[in-house]
């Protein structure tokens, strides 16, 4: 049984459809990442699942029951926002206890104490419990905000770009920690982000959202290796996937200027756009010549920017290669990794 089933969800603000028929399914203990640019509808989707917005059409199923019209409190979901909304002037402990002291919860003081302590230890903020929330660093504040979601022991986490306001370095460490923690707790999560590395790294599934519609859903591997459209390809991967306009000439792909781009499958269309990732292009072994325009250091690898077939082609090569601007080469696109659109 799925934990969450969103079907045909539509939400309009005036004439504009922020969500335009969204489907999303989440299994027990899974992390679903919704990836999309600003304005794609990500936050509206989370708010609608949480019950903070009423959909104009479609349904939301939580643990097998229809929750479309349930009030937020009945849904047992915990939301974490981009802006850590803590109570300044109150201690970390008071901030963590707050959701547990809500009217109607009726938890014993010992139970509150236990939950706060457990969450604080898991998030490595136990030493900060008595500190005033306004004296925390950004990273610490976001840990407390996540802690407030954890203590509630909800059935579902909904997180809206919780790491966006943090330094790149901290974001990278926290994404690993957060995914590991959520998996350990076994609570499923819908995680919204515009950061493609977060999406690949954290998700059991990725759902690429644009203009209120899901462009593709699948495992990170499936979406990364076989993007359904150029729009999806552009959303994932750094550098983005190379795109080449091609026509089929017998058993070969050719660019507009006649450049041979490699073998074409027999059933391929006469005209297509080809997509190939930088790591699936070798600088040598191809049929046509290119020129190295730039060599970029990208940490663990180098990126060659080639002038090829009237466009630019990114090629990933190992670090400390001897390629330099002006060099000539013959790039080869690995045929098994060429996506045809």
């Amino acid at each position, binding site marked *: 049984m799925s934990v969450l089933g969103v079907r045909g969800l539509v939400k309009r603000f005036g004439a504009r459809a922020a969500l335009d028929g969204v489907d999303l399914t989440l299994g027990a203990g899974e992390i679903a990442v919704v990836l999309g*640019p*600003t304005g794609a509808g990500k936050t509206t989707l989370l708010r609608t699942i949480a019950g903070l917005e009423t959909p104009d059409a479609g349904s939301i199923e939580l643990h097998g029951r229809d929750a479309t019209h349930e009030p937020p409190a009945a849904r047992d979901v915990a939301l974490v926002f981009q802006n850590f909304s803590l109570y300044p002037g109150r201690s970390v402990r008071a901030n963590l206890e707050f959701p547990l002291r809500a009217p109607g919860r009726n938890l014993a003081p010992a139970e509150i104490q236990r939950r706060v302590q457990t969450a604080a230890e898991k998030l490595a903020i136990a030493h900060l419990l008595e500190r005033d929330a306004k004296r925390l660093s950004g990273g610490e504040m976001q840990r407390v905000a996540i802690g407030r979601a954890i203590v509630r022991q909800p059935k579902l986490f909904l997180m809206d770009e919780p790491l966006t306001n943090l330094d790149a370095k901290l974001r990278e460490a926290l994404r690993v920690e957060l995914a590991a923690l959520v998996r350990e707790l076994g609570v499923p999560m819908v995680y919204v982000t*515009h950061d493609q590395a977060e999406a690949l790294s954290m998700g059991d599934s990725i759902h690429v959202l644009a203009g209120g519609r899901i462009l593709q859903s699948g495992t990170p591997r499936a979406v*990364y290796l076989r993007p359904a459209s150029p729009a999806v390809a552009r959303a994932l991967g750094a550098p*983005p996937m190379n795109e080449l306009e091609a026509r089929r000439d017998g058993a070969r792909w050719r660019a507009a200027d006649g450049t041979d781009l490699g073998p074409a499958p027999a059933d391929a269309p006469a005209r297509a756009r080809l997509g190939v990732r930088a790591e699936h292009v070798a600088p040598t072994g191809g049929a046509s010549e290119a020129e190295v325009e730039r060599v*970029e250091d*990208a940490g663990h690898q180098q990126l060659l920017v080639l002038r090829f077939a009237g466009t630019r082609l990114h090629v990933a090569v190992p670090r400390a290669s001897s390629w330099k601007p002006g060099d000539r080469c013959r790039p080869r696109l690995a045929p098994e990794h060429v996506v045809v659109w």
Partner: protein
Amino acid sequence: MKAVRLEQVEKTYPDGTRAVRGIDLALEAGEFVVLLGPSGCGKTTTLRMIAGLELPTAGSIRLGEAEVTRLRPAQRDVGFVFQFYALYPHMTVRENLAFPLEATGVARAEIARRVDEVARHLGLLELLPRRPRQLSGGDQQRVALGRAMIRRPAVWLMDEPLGTLDADLRLTMCEFLRARQLEERVTTVYVTHDQEEALRLADRIVVMSQGAILQAASATEVYDRPADLFVARFVGSPGMNFLAGEAHGTRVRCGTQEFQLARPLAPGQVTLGIRPESVALAVAPEGSGTLRGRVAVDEYLGSSRCLHVDTPLGRIVARVAPDAPGARGEEVGLALDGAHLLAFDATSGRLLA
């Protein structure tokens, strides 16, 4: 003559906070230098002092031959763009872009030509007749960037100019910015906390922490030979792995493991460092240079995977091929490539060998 020269530049605020602690930095004409560091490291304060938006409490700043330490921003030939764009709300995008040129008396036809060119590169052509409040945050950011780049001042100063853009746009802007800078040869100081951006753009990276410069070197040098533990951890995604050990000549003992270095060290406590891509999955039995541990996190990153492995020597991250073995919960062996081991002084954190 250097295009920009900072000597013993200091900034202490009235409350006693030392934001910048006597830094020296010189830029060659046409050089692209990136100031990189976490929040609060002093990089933005440094940039603002070069711009003249803040005055140093000690030291001197020269742009070319001119001493500008106490000059107002308008008296310095600099163009700047900040993360939080400031556009003129009553002007259209075209007027905003043209403004810096009109102030300098460029011919009308030439202004129109340059505005169109910049707008085309930044994808702003359709937005030219609009006003800032009709634009999204990302579009406003692009206009701000375009406005800074339309003029060719002695120095461009940029504070996270791509900060609010979406990833794909960010990369395009990055490439445009660099291409344009190379074409115009404008000396550029660029502030970011994003090290991938720094690696991609910079002729030279200046890593800052707590108001001091820890290292100023090429991207390759900073990555391969970080000056200290902070730089090693900060640069690289994920950062370098560390192991505590004790040096005996060319051998370093870490717990029950022993590693071989290329160069001998003085006896004492050291911290070994190794990049995730220099850690491989090992099939060989436990022995010199092989560590066993359990995979705590298996992070798929598209072109590679990062296995976060808990070993008796602490957590080690290995960058492996997307289809390599090693799933979450499994036990694996790790081989550390001795040729890529660095040794740091355990106390000072400085690079030894």
